[in-house]
């Protein structure tokens, strides 16, 4: 086990015995994982290993079949009462999701809104800020991801790398305590990957708690505090980037790294 970067008694995310099946296919077979505040955890593994599904369980885009996930000490999507667990209402789940930003492989920007419109939509709709304050904060965020001059462009007019950086700004606009990245660079042309990764590295440096599903071993080595290797729905091994990427102890990790490095 690595020592957490920030000394803190409570983990930001606690995943306990999480199981999930799609029909007969068991995607997650009992996952246990802690993520500490300010920590950057990279999930790596072959496709179909369940890493994206695990990430999507963290903000309840997927329901878990068994086990539980806590973010900041609260269950996600459920409420514990006695020894029973109840699913929350849409409104309550939304309140929890506000604290968790997510960035998708396919960007999923809203094509009918401008760049700035995408960024301010959630804070304005959820009453976090008035239109003008939200726009000012949005412009700041766009500057932070290097897109200050694109605020009135539409997503379609931007490159993939620019769209993904807008998506990051959009997620940050809700001032999340935790950011989830689901293969954020997999849909990008190779020359555009660097811009997105450097934005993510800056975010990590600023102390954001991040869980990143990625195939970018370079990013994992540079920015991650901990690398977690998953295979066939199980967490195979975890450790510091150098431990996992250079001296993996598990045979399956070695086989995977031989293929991707």
């Amino acid at each position, binding site marked *: 086990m690595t020592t957490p970067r920030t000394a803190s008694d409570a983990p930001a995310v606690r995943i306990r015995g999480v199981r999930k099946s799609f029909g007969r296919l068991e995607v997650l077979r009992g996952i246990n994982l802690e993520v500490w505040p300010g920590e950057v955890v990279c999930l790596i593994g072959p496709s179909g290993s369940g890493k994206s599904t695990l990430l999507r369980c963290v903000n309840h885009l997927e329901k878990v079949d068994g086990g539980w996930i806590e973010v900041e000490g609260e269950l996600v999507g459920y409420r514990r009462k006695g020894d029973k667990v109840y699913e929350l209402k849409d409104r309550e789940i939304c309140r929890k999701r506000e604290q968790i930003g997510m960035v998708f492989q396919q960007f999923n920007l809203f094509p*009918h809104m401008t760049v700035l419109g995408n960024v301010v939509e959630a804070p304005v709709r959820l009453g976090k800020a008035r239109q003008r304050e939200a726009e000012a904060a949005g412009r700041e965020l766009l500057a932070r991801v290097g897109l200050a001059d694109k605020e009135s462009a539409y997503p379609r007019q931007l490159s993939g790398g620019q769209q993904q950086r807008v998506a990051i700004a959009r997620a940050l606009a809700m001032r999340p305590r935790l950011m989830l990245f689901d293969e954020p660079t997999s849909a990008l042309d190779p020359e555009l990957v660097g811009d997105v990764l450097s934005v993510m590295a800056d975010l990590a440096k600023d102390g954001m708690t991040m869980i990143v599903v990625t195939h970018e071993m370079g990013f994992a080595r540079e920015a991650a505090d901990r690398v977690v290797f998953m295979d066939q729905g199980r967490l195979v091994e975890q450790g510091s980037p150098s431990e996992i990427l250079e001296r993996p102890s598990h045979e399956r990790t070695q086989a995977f790294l031989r293929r991707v490095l």
Partner: protein
Amino acid sequence: MTLQGDGGTDPRGHGDDVRAVPLRHPGRWVASAVVLVVAAAVVSSLVTNERFQWDVVGEYFFSSAILSGLWTTLWLTAVSMTIAVVLGIVIALMRLSPNPVLQGGANLYTWFFRGTPLLVQLIFLFNISALYPVLTVGVPFGPQFFEIPANDILTPAVVAIVGLSLNEAAYMAEIVRGGIKSVDHGQTEAAQALGLRRSVIMRRVVLPQAIRVILPPTGNETISMLKYTSLISVIAMPELLYSAQVIYSRTYETIPLLLVASIWYLIVTSVLTVGQAYLERRMSRDQRNPETFLGGLRRHLRVHDRRAITRRERP
């Protein structure tokens, strides 16, 4: 191979300016000739057949009875279509709901209203007082709050609006459902991840994108609705067709009055078609390619310029 070719007049030459002789289409020429002959026959009969009675057409075209019928047709179309769109959205959302009762109800509704002819539905509704002489509001098998004779409520106008909109809603529901399903699920997920609520996601994210798919067929439905209002003539509501019928049943000038109605229908559907095309163009500009009309034109011209230059620059 020579690069200077003098206009490519040399058939064996491989100069760059070779002009291909276009393929001839004799079949098209024959077909065009047939079309022209038929058109000429139609025009000549329109002019020479006195039984068209064009003078009578002109006499009644702007008569107050016809114009008030036209007005009824127009507002009936507008009101029924508006109700149908709203009801259609509700039924579409029911069909997309995970709840089997809502889903089943919506399916049953669509099945019934698409499976029986509109004309039958209208006559049925007009005669509903035979089935329910008294309409009551209350709990099924329980207490009744108030009651009213069916004939007091179901005037021809109410039957027309209810009949047309209930029927149209079934079709609109399918169109809306198709539009909603055309929006990528990633859009919903991204909005969910931001913490937006389901109703907000539908209103702000999904429907504005679905509208692009929903609008063109809705335009077609509006045009169909305009024509279907003529069915209302069977319940003696003076819309455009019935107004014409009332006149010719008195004067026996059947053909000219049907022409009056037909020409008015053509005028209105033409206007609606133009409006629909304009709206579609505006929608696609806003959403797909958000640029101004002039900007688009300028860009278009630039592309052509460049093409022209490259063509000239080639030896």
